[in-house]
């Protein structure tokens, strides 16, 4: 465990070292490639004057609302498409099609429908999350070994009871994988939305990134990008990964 940490730390230290070397070599103008220390100084000042916290808070709030809505609509629809032929042929096909649409593509439509509003932003996040969540849920339920429901039926379980006591718990590890994927999609969609939808109700990380570009403040651009990566990584490692590991081990669905 400690060895793995050491390897990871060494790797990232080397990356930063290479970055520093590239800056020292002065191949690119410092305006385009700021040094690691100047990015760090920007991040420090942004933490100190509170802008980074505020932006992160605004972004995470939007993310939770949008992601929550996506799950609230997507999970039941995914369960529906997995259970009935007719819903698979209608909602299932729709989801499969719209899933291929990158979430940025929803921005023009959202802007025209909702204007520069919070709703436009949420709409993009929900559209970016929903369809992949439906597909993942659908796949998850279909992956359940049929022996579970046969055993349950043999013991006299049927209909709704089978659903709540067998299908749903059996699908749990797969549903979680779907939710994890949905989370990644929601995060991407929100960044796209924040960069393109400029509103005054809340200044998120995407906006911070956008204004960094407007001001040609490369230290800000890279700094905010790092924060976005860190949040994504932290959520995956601390929230999803442990639960996922636990479920796959206990359900006997662990891969590899």
């Amino acid at each position: 465990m400690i060895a793995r940490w050491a390897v990871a730390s060494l790797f990232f230290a080397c990356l930063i070292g290479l970055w520093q070397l590239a800056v020292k070599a002065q191949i690119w103008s410092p305006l385009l490639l700021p040094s690691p220390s100047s990015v760090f100084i920007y991040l420090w000042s942004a933490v100190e004057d509170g802008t980074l916290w505020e932006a992160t808070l605004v972004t995470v709030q939007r993310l939770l609302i949008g992601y929550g809505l996506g799950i609230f609509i997507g999970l039941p629809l995914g369960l529906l498409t997995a259970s009935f032929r007719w819903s698979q042929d209608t909602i299932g096909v729709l989801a499969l099609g719209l899933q291929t649409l990158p979430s940025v593509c929803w921005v023009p439509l959202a802007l025209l429908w909702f204007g520069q509003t919070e709703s436009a932003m949420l709409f993009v996040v929900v559209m970016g999350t929903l369809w992949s969540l439906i597909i993942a849920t659908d796949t998850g339920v279909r992956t359940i070994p049929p022996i579970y429901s046969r055993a349950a039926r043999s013991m006299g379980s049927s209909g709704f009871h089978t659903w709540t006591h067998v299908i749903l718990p059996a699908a749990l590890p797969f549903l979680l994988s779907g939710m994890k994927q949905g989370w990644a999609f929601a995060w991407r969609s929100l960044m796209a939305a924040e960069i393109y939808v400029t509103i005054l109700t809340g200044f998120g990380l995407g906006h911070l990134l956008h204004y960094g570009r407007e001001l040609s403040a490369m230290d800000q651009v890279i700094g905010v990008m790092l924060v976005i990566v860190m949040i994504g990584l932290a959520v995956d490692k601390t929230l999803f990964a442990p639960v996922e590991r636990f479920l796959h081990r206990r359900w006997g669905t662990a891969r590899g």
Partner: protein
Amino acid sequence: MQPVASSTDAVLSKLVLEHVSKWFQTSSLHVQALDDVTLRIAEGEFVCLVGPSGCGKSTLLNLIAGLDRADRGTVQADGQTISGPGPHRLMMFQEAALFPWLTVLGNVLFGLKLVKGLSASERREKAEYFLELVGLKRFMHSNVYELSGGMRQRVALARSLAPNPSVLLMDEPFGALDALTREQLYGDIQRIWSQHRKTIVFVTHNVREAVCLGDRVILFSPNPGRIREEFSIPLPRPRDINSVDLARYSTEITRVLKGYVQNEVAG
């Protein structure tokens, strides 16, 4: 050791299958799984169905369990046509079909909760009794993934026994276990059967296993599944799978079985 023509009296029959045929339709094939199968099984009898894969043994169990319907013929339990699954006929599967999201105790309680008219404490009492019977009471709070293959099948056995079914249907339940574990389970199942006198229909492709457990061994041949011969096994119990008497029966039955399989290949 004579093949039996007609084994049991119709009046005492627990399960009666008459002229049962079953087809399966896939996109490219129309397969007949069972062809005109007639079989009577008495109350409390231990019957083993033996045959190569594809001979419709498992299909037959599904019909008795009520998980599937016959295309032709009738399947009756206690004189009534079987129309669906019921707590009187429980199935135990090849793989441990235990639910991994429940503990060992939770799994045994699953079937009990579907039996009407039991209080929570009665269910708990029964579950613990049957876990004790299969020797796993101290593992009752364990998770399924922590158990070995043999232990899992023991839990599955307890789960099937707990709702007190009159018929136990076992679909190659020991197929995936190692020889030593299997031998232990032969002992367990004979002990439990002699204590509780369930009617057991046991599907296997292992002739020795069938002779060790069954009052009767019924031989199936494949494509389509047909009953070819019946053997009654009058050996005293408990039987040891390694005994010489038992080997005599299984050698004879294996010889007959090979004849059918070879004819099948030649024809």
